[in-house]
């Protein structure tokens, strides 16, 4: 697949933006400025950046919680995300929710429920709506390796496959569901083998190679958009931090982390861009500088933003308050 230079540089920009934003959130967490937890996509950023960047403007994302790249690509700004972490009124959910529990229909992003893989059937429903209305839009729904053990994974995959719905299911296989390694999660070697049971085509990609994730997703979206039905894409990667930032992840063998550190998705992309003479090191440095500035501005915005009012707790339960 030919990918334009400007797209490759954008992929790099979003990898950097995701990494730096989540690194900063981690620091703020350790400074006690973030009340709840911080869950990052550290080490797995190429998954959300790759599949998110391959979507068209009118498509829908039904994300999970290591999908920061998708939020940024869709147009949810670093400012609003930083304010979300700090529980500010200007955050994506105005303080109603914290951290990665964001959603914004203006950008085609469904909210993320913590009950993993709830968003597979929900995403399939949006795809069903597109099919009923004859719209050429697709859905990307994401979950983790652990999430593929839940019933909603099965039910969402099955409905989509039976009716050839325009949806692509992504799995961020980062080897650990909290502390539980893959081998205690499933008796199969590849998560993608699950797709076979639904009669659904699947692909296994290097989840640390953003170009490969992007290309695989793009191709699957086009199949779905043209009536070819769903695809399951397993992105093999490695979670480099704990489940969340309070978790030191001592249960993960150090050698495993050392091995994956060499395959860091950002390092990989830098080597790819410079090695193939697509960009000079200086150009990448200037992108990084832009990212740093954006994060600083986002943090300042979040710090200066007001907190919600206590009485906001009672607002917004219903879209149509009863009796009106």
């Amino acid at each position, binding site marked *: 697949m030919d990918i334009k230079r400007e797209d490759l540089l954008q992929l790099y920009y979003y990898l950097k933006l995701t990494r730096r934003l989540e690194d900063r959130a981690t620091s703020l967490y350790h400074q006690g400025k973030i009340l709840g937890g911080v869950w990052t996509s550290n080490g797995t950023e190429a998954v959300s950046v790759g599949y998110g960047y391959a979507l068209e403007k009118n498509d*829908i994302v*039904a994300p999970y919680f290591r999908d920061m790249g998708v939020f940024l690509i869709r147009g949810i700004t670093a400012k609003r995300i930083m304010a979300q972490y700090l529980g500010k009124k200007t955050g*994506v*959910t105005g303080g*109603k*929710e914290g951290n990665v*529990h*964001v*959603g*914004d*229909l203006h950008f085609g992003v*469904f*909210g993320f*429920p*913590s*009950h993993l893989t*709830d968003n*597979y*059937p*929900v*995403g*399939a*429903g*949006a*795809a*069903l*709506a*597109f*099919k*009923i209305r004859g719209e050429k839009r697709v*859905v990307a729904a994401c979950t983790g390796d652990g999430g593929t053990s839940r*019933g*909603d994974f*099965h*039910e*969402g995959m*099955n*409905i989509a496959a*039976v009716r050839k719905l325009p949806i692509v299911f992504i799995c961020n296989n980062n080897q650990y569901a909290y502390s539980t390694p893959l081998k205690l999660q499933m008796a199969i070697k590849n998560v993608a083998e699950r797709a076979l049971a639904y009669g659904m085509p699947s692909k296994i990609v290097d989840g640390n190679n953003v170009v490969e994730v992007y290309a695989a997703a793009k191709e699957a979206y086009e199949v779905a958009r043209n009536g070819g039905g769903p695809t399951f894409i397993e992105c093999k990667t490695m979670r480099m931090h704990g489940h969340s930032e309070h978790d030191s992840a001592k249960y993960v063998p150090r050698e495993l982390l050392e091995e994956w550190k060499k395959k860091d998705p950002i390092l990989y992309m830098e080597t790819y861009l410079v090695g193939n003479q697509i960009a000079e090191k200086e150009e990448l440095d200037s992108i990084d500088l832009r990212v740093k500035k954006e994060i600083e501005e986002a943090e300042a915005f979040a710090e200066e933003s007001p907190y919600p009012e206590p009485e906001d707790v009672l607002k*917004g*339960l*219903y*879209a*149509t308050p*009863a*009796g009106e």
Partner: protein
Amino acid sequence: MKETTYLEAIKEALDEEMARDPDVFILGEDVGVYGGAFRVTEGLSEKYGEWRVFDTPLSESGFTGAAIGAALVGMRPVVEMQFADFISCAFDQLVNVAAKNHYRWGAATPLVVRAPYGGNVHGGAFHSQCIEGFFFNVPGLKIVAPSTAYDAKGLLKAAIRDNDPVIYCEHKYLYRRIKDHIPEEDYAVPIGKARIAVEGNDVSIITYGAMVHTAIEAAQTLKESGVSCEIIDLRTILPLDRESILTTVKKTNKVVVLHEQTKTGGVGAEISALISESCFDYLDGPIIRIAAPDTPVPYSAQMEEAFIPQIKDLITAVEKLMRY
């Protein structure tokens, strides 16, 4: 005005709303060519096609999640639970996704879940339950339970047009047993408003669903002995119409709360507490709850009759209350 059964009224509401709004569609098990286990959707598949009367796999969580996803992108799905009892399989999607979408991230979920519920049909523990209590403690949901054909049609239309998730409890026992003269022209019954089914002065009987008819029969007998009962048909269970409840208490000063749902932690408990908190001074005697005992629904006719509140139980309670 034409004579219509409770079941026909539900079907008419579906048919008319589907004709009026192309975003309205039905999904569930066997709703298509077969017309649903109770034949509520019979003929609609031929009229609107297999995509708008959508047969799903046996997958309550999956198709409820899918309905939520479709609703998020502008459809107005009506889910049919084959029996209300199976709604437990979709509990997570309703409680954690549908109910919280608007509060958490501002997205409306215009979803209706039709739940054929209730006993007296010899269905045993898995085909007879009252499920409203499971969801009564879930902020963000609405629950309605019509007792007449007029309300069955009007409340379903209101539920479909509402922008929030509504659990529509349709009592199986009433399907073909009651008929009303209902208007030919379009109408909706507002969600959140109770009605006075029978006006009276001495005792208030607050109830809903099939028990409204039990209350009416009891009231007729009591009238012969000079006791005038006022029957409040709640129509909407969540949110409760506090004003109608408090108004009748202030008028009669004596209250019986009647429901088919089991007693502990039920809707009646909440109504009793509401009355105690808000107009204790108006009460002449204790609030009496008549409800099913705290057991699963038994199968044998002798036991099921003992399980479901009977006219004689209500008469005994009212007579006791009249001594205050």
